[in-house]
């Protein structure tokens, strides 16, 4: 009896995120068969189920002297929706293109379903649905013909039914030539391309860019459905709200390096929290003793209110406020956007901090 395999598989079921019931059921059956030792083939199948869907190991990519990514390592579990965040030029697209075998890494490697990706070999591509960051397709052809050509280049021969279903949900006319489609509709073609052959791994680079809010919701639904059906999704996005809406975990990249890898809830918590204080009528709003209150900054000051941002414990702020007649205190929920900005704020020069503070101020005004 291969004990270690049994333990790993069991751990996978009980301690890791397995998102769909059928996978758990299948694992159960396989473990039964392993226990009875009836069939060796099941051992390898069980091993495959326990392996990560995507693994990036010490990946580095340099463009001459310019850094794309450096020493990047993370993995994505099967059935997981994994957010991949970072500002422009942080290395998200570089990682994705290395993962697709379009770029040759300078160091390290990428694995999909345990198989190493060899640049240009496309060995895993029948199982991958890919939406590039800048989706461009043959402009003179109809969307239907373009998608059919791309489907024939993989294993997606019987996709017409799925294609129709997706086109209906995305409200897309497949019989129009691509050059006559708007930017948003072209992006819908890209979404359809990624999802049409029901791949087991989806790599989506900014899937909702240029889409209206309603279609954006449809795309997020498609992502959730795919994960529910057992697919693994790597979602690279600038739209943090959509990452928060669908992803369980996220990685944050900064200047080609992994800045954070954590559950979304933890990322949000790590952000700078906000506090809004209403002083009693007629009270002069006190000025903030920045030198005494470390980690606290002023976002906005009005006639009777003070809008603060703080990091760490709220205790020193409350003790300072206790000296004044306060009517009401609210703690607006920290958005992922603020947490995200906070991640980039770390180690940034002062000028940038001021800029980010003004962004927070704008956000508070909008609220």
């Amino acid at each position: 009896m291969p004990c270690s395999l049994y333990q790993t598989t069991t751990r996978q079921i009980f301690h890791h995120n397995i998102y769909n019931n059928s996978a758990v059921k299948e694992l159960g059956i396989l473990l039964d068969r392993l226990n009875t030792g009836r069939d060796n083939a099941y051992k390898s199948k069980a091993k495959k189920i326990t392996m990560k869907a995507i693994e990036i190991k010490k990946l580095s990519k340099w463009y001459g002297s310019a850094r794309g990514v450096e020493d990047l390592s993370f993995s994505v579990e099967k059935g997981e929706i994994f957010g991949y965040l970072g500002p422009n030029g942080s290395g998200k697209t570089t990682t994705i293109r290395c993962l697709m075998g379009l770029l040759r890494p300078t160091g390290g490697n990428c694995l999909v379903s345990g198989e190493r990706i060899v640049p240009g070999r496309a060995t895993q591509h029948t199982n991958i649905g890919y939406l590039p960051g800048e989706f461009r397709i043959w402009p003179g052809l109809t969307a239907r013909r373009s998608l059919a050509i791309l489907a024939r280049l993989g294993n997606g021969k019987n996709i017409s039914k799925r294609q129709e279903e997706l086109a209906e949900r995305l409200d897309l006319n497949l019989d129009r030539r691509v050059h006559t489609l708007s930017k948003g509709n072209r992006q819908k073609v890209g979404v359809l391309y990624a999802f049409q052959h029901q791949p087991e791994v989806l790599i989506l680079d900014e899937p909702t860019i240029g889409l209206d809010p309603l279609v954006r919701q449809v795309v997020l639904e498609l992502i959730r459905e795919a994960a529910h059906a057992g697919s693994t999704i790597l979602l690279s996005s600038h739209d943090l709200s959509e990452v928060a809406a669908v992803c369980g975990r996220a990685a944050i990249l900064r200047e080609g390096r992994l800045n954070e890898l954590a559950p979304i809830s933890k990322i949000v918590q790590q952000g700078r929290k906000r506090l809004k204080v209403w002083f009693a009528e007629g009270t002069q709003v006190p000025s903030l003793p920045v030198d005494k209150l470390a980690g606290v900054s002023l976002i906005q000051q009005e006639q009777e209110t003070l809008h603060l941002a703080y990091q760490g414990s709220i205790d020193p702020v409350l003790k300072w406020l206790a000296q004044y007649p306060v009517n009401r205190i609210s703690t607006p929920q920290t958005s992922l956007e603020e947490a995200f900005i906070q991640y980039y704020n770390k180690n940034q020069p002062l000028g940038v901090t001021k800029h980010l503070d003004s962004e927070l101020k704008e956000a508070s005004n909008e609220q």
Partner: protein
Amino acid sequence: MNSKVRPRFPLPLLRFWTLRILPIWALIALVIFLFQIAVCGIVHDNESVKTFINFIDRLPSFIKTIFGGESLKVGNISGLIAIGYNHPLVLTLYMLFAVGVPTGLLAGEVQKGTMELILSRHVTKIHAYICAGLITITGMFALVMVMFSGTVFATNVYEFSQEVPLHSFFKAAINGGILASAVGGIALLAAACFQRNTAVWLTVAYLVANYFVSIIAEWWPRMKWLKPTTIFYYVDGTKIFTESKWPISNMCVLLSILVISTVLGGVIWSRRDLPL
């Protein structure tokens, strides 16, 4: 998930690219075919030939060299029909195909962003390169055969005072086909290394330089030593029409250029990061 699966040759991609190229190929083939018939229509009549040669003689001597030089004389039917083979219009059409197809298929798809989609399917980079190479080389040979069939058709339509050596024209066509394919190989190499416009300009510059060097070497005796340095030297019309055997050594040189440039292009293409 399936384990590692070696991709099969992407016949749908070959079919798709062939269908895209077919209209321009058909147009070039039609023009070349009709041009051969027109040339035969002119040169089968001695009076027309005299008028043509008188006209050519009045122009600068290098123009006569371009059209065939001393082989242009009344009674030399082979030399006169061969005008249709080395006429600048025909050469330009060949080069348009040889340069346009590989650069359009490889560098063009990269520039349009569609190569990223093709390579995100079950298609290896080498397979995509082979598809472009096959279409270029097969297309070139097919054009050469169309040219030869134009000559065959015209010799059946028009009556000539002496027998037309079709066997020699066939040799010339095959030799020309290998030359055109070698140019295609150079264009493939350029397309594998550079962006579309750079690849086109480099290949065209290479061809134009070769063409003018070959004309100058032919026209100016002091520059004769330059002849073997040009790609056009290896299609020797005089040798083809005067000797019965095939110009094997010349064909081998051209085949070497084709093989070396194509293989080198394939190696660079497979190792190059895509898209740029």
